[in-house]
Structures are given as C-alpha cells and as structure tokens.
C-alpha cells in the first residue's frame, strides 16, 4: 500500500478543500509536514484513521464536532454542511479512492452526533471508477484496524509498546499481521460447531433422555470452562501489571547509589535461579521419562530367574517343541514313501501336505525366539542395574539443583534484608514496595495455577461426557453421519490449534531477529532487545557477566518501539514476497505515518531516529514541529525528502506570546503561525524545492 494523496474538506481545523500528495520515490520516500504544536498534525494523523476505520484517538477533544467550526458557526440555520476525508492509495497494483463523509444541517451551535458514510472506488485502467462493495470489510483486509496503531504512530503513545502489559497488544498485532487472527477464531469457534452438531444427534428411544442429560452437562461444563478461562485471563493481566511494577522497582534500585551493588548481585542470583530452575525441570522430566519407559524393571528382581528355570524344566521334560529337521522331510519325499508306509506319489494330497510341512520345517523361528527370550531375560538384571544407576544419578543432580536453588533463594532473601537495613529511607521504601508487589504477583500465579488445574479437570469431565455420548446407540443413519462430522470438526480444531502455535512462535522468532538487527543499526547502547515468547518487548544489558534488564530511557524506548514497527513492516513485505501469507495474512508493502516522534529526545536520539525512519518503510510521512525536530533532523532527512508541506496555524487571537511567525525551508519563507487571522484553523502549503 502506498498513499498517493489525502484531501480534507472542512475536516476539523481544515477549512475548505485542502489536499496534499505524498512522496513515493524509493530513494526520496519521506514526506514531512511541519506544524506548530496544536497546529493540525495530530488531526491529520487522525484523518487517516478516521477515513480508514472511522476511529479517532482517545485524546481528541469534542470528537463529534467533525465539521470545521468556522464553517459551522458562519452557516445559516438549516444549511446542509459536510466534512470529509478522501484518501487515494495504491494497493497491489490497483489505485483506490476512499472517502468518508459526514453530513449535517446546521441546527444551533453544537453539531449532531455524526453518522459517517464510507465509499470506496477502484480506478480502472481507463480512468473510470468502479465502486467497491463492503468497503469496511475490504479495507480491514488490506490493513486491519488492529494494526493501525503501528502504521499510524503517535510518538507520545508508541513508547507504551515497551511496557510489560503491552504484550497482549503486540501479540494481537503479530497475529493479525500473519492472518493468525482468523485461525485463532477458528480454534475457538470449532468446538461450538461440534456442540451444535451434537445437539442434532438422535439416540434410540431409551437412550434419548440420557443423551439430553449428557448434552446438558456438556453445556454446563463448557460454561464453567469459560468462567475459569475468564478468571485465568484476569489473573494473567494482573500478574503482568505486578511484573511490570517489580521490574521498574528493581530498575529504580539500580539507580539508587547505596543499593546499586546489592541490586546487581540480586539480578545475578535471580538469573542463576532462573537457569537452575530450568535445569531442574529438565532433569525431572528426564527422570519421569525414564521411569515411564523402564520403571517396570524395578518390579522384576526375581522374575528373570524364574522364567529361565521354568523354560529349562520344560526343555528337560521334552515339552518344548522339538526341532523338525528339513533334511528328514527331504529324505521322505525322495524315497516316495512316508514312515507310516503311505505312498507319496507326485500330486497326491499326502505328498502335497508333506511339501507344505517342508516349508515350515526346522522351526527356526522357535529356536530363534527361544534364544532371544533367553538373551532378553538374562539381560533384565543388567538393564535394571543400569536404570537404577541412571535414576540415582538423576536424583543426585536434582538434589544438587534443589540445594543450589535453596542457596540462591536464601541469598536473594538475604540481599532483601541487607537492603532494608541500609540507612536510606528510599531504599527501604522501594524494597518494601518490591516485597508487596512480589507477594501480589505470587498470589496471581497461584490463581492462574488454580484456574489451569480446574480447566484441565473440566477438560477431562468433558472428554468423559463426550465418550459417553459416543457410546450411546444412535437412532439412524443421519445421526451416524453427524457423528462422523463431529469427529472431523474436532480433528480440524486440534490440528489448527497445533498449527497456530507453530506459526505464532515462528513469526515471533522472525520478528525477534528483525528487531535485534534494526535496533543494533540505530542504538548507541550495546543493549540486546528481545521479543519474548510472551510477545513482550524487553531490553537486556549483557555488558557484565550476567544478562540484566537494561534501564530504558525515553530515547531507548522510542528506538525499541520503532524497531518493532520496522520489524512488522519488514515481515509484512517479506510475507508477501515469499508467499508466506498462505493463511491469508496481511502481506505487502505498507507506509508509516508518524506524529511527534522527536519530542523529548536529545540531539543524538533525534539524529538516530531521523536517520532510521526513511529505512523503516518504503513510504514515510512525518508530522513534526520545527521545535521538536530541530536543525539536526532536517539535515539528516534532507537527502530522503520527497515532499514537504508547512501546516500554517491561524488564530483569531491577538494576545499570543512566543509565536514563530515564519518558517524558512529550502531558502523560502512560509507563514507558520498567523496571529490575529480572520479565522482559526490550519492550512497546507507545499514547500518549493
């Protein structure tokens, strides 16, 4: 997708019809719009999301007042008025024109609640416009609303992506991007399909009542599962909040001079504790596997001897099958007479029977099986000894890990006590808050565990009920067909759940690699970003012997968030090139529109971001004030600038202090803020090259 132009008609501060076109050349792919604070930048960002999705950001004041107030106020009562945003864009080789409008007749000062209308046309080769049906659905397929915040970026809010509790937003974005949202919904919805089908089964007369009872119980159980899932999701959300609080309190501790060293030591021990827990878990799993596959050997101490003795006795008594030698039968066939005297003439049934026996003669299998049995039985003792040794070794290692775990936990507690004994009041308060947050977090962990256990139990109950339903005698062929459909639906649901997990982790891994690469290119720090398996953006400092969370400044947060946006755009682009969107993900080349990305940053970060932005996407639109960007951004962006506009802010006020009246760009001067104007609003002027 590439934006060609946007046209605003009486939309918020933009009076009349005003249009801007965007840079599209790959080498000069940046369009910059310069505007003062409150001068119409954020409105322009909102114009995109309103046109595409009918959405305005939450901080927009008086969101119902979409028609330019100067136009509204100066109109006569009853005059029909309109406001609209028209976006012309190119998507997969076609040009589209999208227009969202509101209409209202002037009645008083306050505008009525808007009821926007959306239209979408595709421009045909001859220039004719073909209306596209279901414009909202089509637009949402091209660039889903859930992704809009990553492509229409508000610099003041994008930083929030780096917060701990943003994992869900990031995960949702990733799933939408790869088309996993449809798959995720399918996994949730297929059991409902199976339930509906199950209700259509008819049992034999006597069983019908039982079937109805079982179906009722199934529905009750499903309701209970949903309730537990709701509890689990709630607890997980709260746990994330406490995790985030713990992380920021820990970081605060590293910034307090008295606590710094102890906190670093605690980080080191916590990192070791995490590793030792993983090792212990692996060893416990290995032990469980060993017991599962070889545990039976422990119950056979005397059995091998007994088996061998019993077989030997049979052999001695001649009760084991004696070997029937092939040579013996060959002799009989050659002689043409059996030992009982029966003639064995060619083609006779007796000769045929003997020839049949010849093929089975030798009982080699019996001999081989006996030898194998003997070998196996004799090796049981040895196998048992080996298993005991392996178990002993695992037990010892697990005990060592437990001991190490206890030591580290004790050490971490000790550090907590030492911190509390330090003379600093602030350290004490921070440590107490940390203790409280950890307790709260542990409470949530317990709640999550309880919900998971209950979901598992209810899962078994459901499975049992399903089995009972399957065992009931169904009445007719139709019911039998329904059963086979239910089986297909359930198999599809299980397979999709597995595929969803594989693809989610696959895209997470690819995005993680991209984020690391992009972040390395742009950051001055030797930190390592990570998109965790829980889809949270983390920043690590590995400069010491242990990896510890890096202190995240506003600049680093911005870089990390932008690296994430860049990774999404890159993944979408590559997804289309490599045909990875086989489940209809969002593939393609997407533009990015950014508002206020340079605010509150020092010059180094402004320069780094200005250098980074043109590489982030194939089309970049930057909305900034001159004060936020400064000379350094202008210099950095100049080689990549395709188009520039000034958004002149008009105000009827006259008593405004510290006004920047003019803006000089490319040697030309443009009005920037007009005080004492005949109107209040915003106006585009293209900057001459």
């Amino acid at each position, binding site marked *: 997708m590439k934006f060609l132009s946007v046209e605003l008609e009486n939309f918020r501060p933009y009076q009349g019809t005003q249009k801007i076109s965007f840079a599209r050349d790959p080498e000069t792919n940046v369009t910059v719009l310069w505007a003062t604070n409150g001068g119409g930048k954020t409105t322009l960002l909102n114009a995109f999301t309103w046109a595409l999705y009918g959405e305005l950001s939450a901080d927009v004041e008086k969101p119902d007042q979409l028609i330019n107030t100067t136009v509204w106020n100066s109109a006569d009562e009853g005059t029909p008025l309109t406001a609209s945003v028209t976006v012309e864009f190119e998507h997969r080789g076609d040009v589209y024109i999208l227009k969202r409008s509101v209409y209202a007749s002037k009645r008083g000062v306050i505008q009525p609640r808007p009821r926007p209308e959306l239209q979408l046309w595709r421009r045909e080769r001859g220039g004719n416009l073909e209306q596209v049906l279901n414009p909202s659905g089509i637009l*949402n*397929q091209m660039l889903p609303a859930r992704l809009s915040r990553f492509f229409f970026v508000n610099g003041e809010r994008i930083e929030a992506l780096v917060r701990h509790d943003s994992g869900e937003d990031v995960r949702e974005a990733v799933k939408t991007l790869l088309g996993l949202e449809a798959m995720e919904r399918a996994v949730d*919805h297929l059991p409902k399909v199976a339930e509906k089908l199950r209700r259509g089964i008819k049992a034999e007369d006597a069983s019908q009542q039982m079937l109805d009872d079982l179906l009722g119980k199934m529905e009750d159980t499903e309701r209970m599962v949903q309730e537990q899932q709701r509890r689990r999701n709630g607890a997980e959300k709260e746990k994330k909040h406490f995790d985030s609080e713990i992380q920021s309190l820990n970081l605060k501790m590293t910034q307090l001079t008295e606590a710094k060293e102890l906190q670093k030591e605690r980080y080191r021990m916590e990192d070791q504790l995490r590793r030792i827990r993983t090792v212990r878990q692996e060893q416990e799993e290995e032990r469980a596997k060993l017991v599962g596959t070889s545990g039976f050997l422990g119950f056979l101490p005397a059995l091998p001897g007994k088996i061998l003795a019993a077989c030997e006795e049979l052999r001695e008594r001649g009760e084991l099958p004696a070997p029937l030698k092939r040579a013996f039968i060959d002799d009989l066939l050659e002689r043409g007479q059996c030992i009982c005297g029966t003639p064995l003439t060619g083609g006779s049934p007796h000769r045929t029977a003997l020839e049949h026996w010849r093929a089975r003669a030798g009982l080699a299998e019996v001999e081989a099986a006996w030898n194998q049995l003997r070998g196996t039985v004799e090796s049981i003792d040895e196998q048992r000894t080996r298993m005991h040794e392996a178990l002993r070794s695992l037990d010892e290692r697990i005990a060592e890990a437990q001991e190490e775990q206890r030591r580290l936990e004790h050490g971490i507690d000790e550090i907590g006590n030492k911190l509390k004994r330090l003379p600093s009041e602030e350290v004490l308060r921070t440590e107490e808050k940390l203790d409280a947050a950890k307790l709260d977090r542990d409470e949530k962990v317990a709640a999550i565990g309880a919900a998971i256990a209950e979901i598992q139990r209810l899962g078994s109950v459901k499975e049992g009920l399903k089995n009972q339903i399957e065992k009931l005698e169904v009445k007719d062929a139709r019911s039998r067909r329904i059963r086979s*459909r239910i089986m297909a639906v359930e198999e599809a649901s299980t397979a999709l759940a597995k595929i969803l997990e594989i693809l989610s982790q696959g895209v997470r891994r*690819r995005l993680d690699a991209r984020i690391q690469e992009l972040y390395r290119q742009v950051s001055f720090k030797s930190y390592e970003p990570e998109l965790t398996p829980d889809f949270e953006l983390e920043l690590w400092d590995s400069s010491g012997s242990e990896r510890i969370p890096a202190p995240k400044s506003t600049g680093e947060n911005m870089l990390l968030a932008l690296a994430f946006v860049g990774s999404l755009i890159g993944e979408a682009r590559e997804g289309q090139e490599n045909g990875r969107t086989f489940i209809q993900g969002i593939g393609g080349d997407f533009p990015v529109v950014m508002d206020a990305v340079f605010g509150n940053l020092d010059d180094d970060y402004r320069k780094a971001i200005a250098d980074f932005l043109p590489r982030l996407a194939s089309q970049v639109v930057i909305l900034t004030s001159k004060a936020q960007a400064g000379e350094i951004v202008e210099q950095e962006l100049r080689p990549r600038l395709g188009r520039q506009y000034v958004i002149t802010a008009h105000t009827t006020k006259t008593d405004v202090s510290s006004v920047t009246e003019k803006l000089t760009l490319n040697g030309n001067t443009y009005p920037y803020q007009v005080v004492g104007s005949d109107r209040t609003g915003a106006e585009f002027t293209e900057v001459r090259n």
Partner: protein
Amino acid sequence: MTNKMDQQEIERVQQILTKINPNAYDVIRMVLALEWENLHKSEALARNTVRDEMAKKVEGIA
C-alpha cells in the same frame, strides 16, 4: 539459520495437514475461509455466524 527454521516450520505444518483425515482437512479450509469473511465482525457476532454456517457447510461431508 532462520531459513532453516522457517523450512522446519513449514514441514511441521505440512506434516500435521497430511496426517489428518481428508474430512478434517476440508473443515479447516471451510472454517478459515469463513472466519476470514467474518473477521471485520465483532467476536461474538462472528462466533454465531461461523457456528451456524459451519453446521450447514459440514453437511457436505459424508
């Protein structure tokens, strides 16, 4: 490294898809197409539509 892992990912998905019953495969195709069509709807609305539509669509399965 990444390409190798991508390949493994594709193989794992293919393995799952080749092992399942052809009827289950058809269900997957039908439900994904339906979910995609209803993606712009709210979750609750999409759930009801998919449940009702799929119950009819699977009637084509023998």
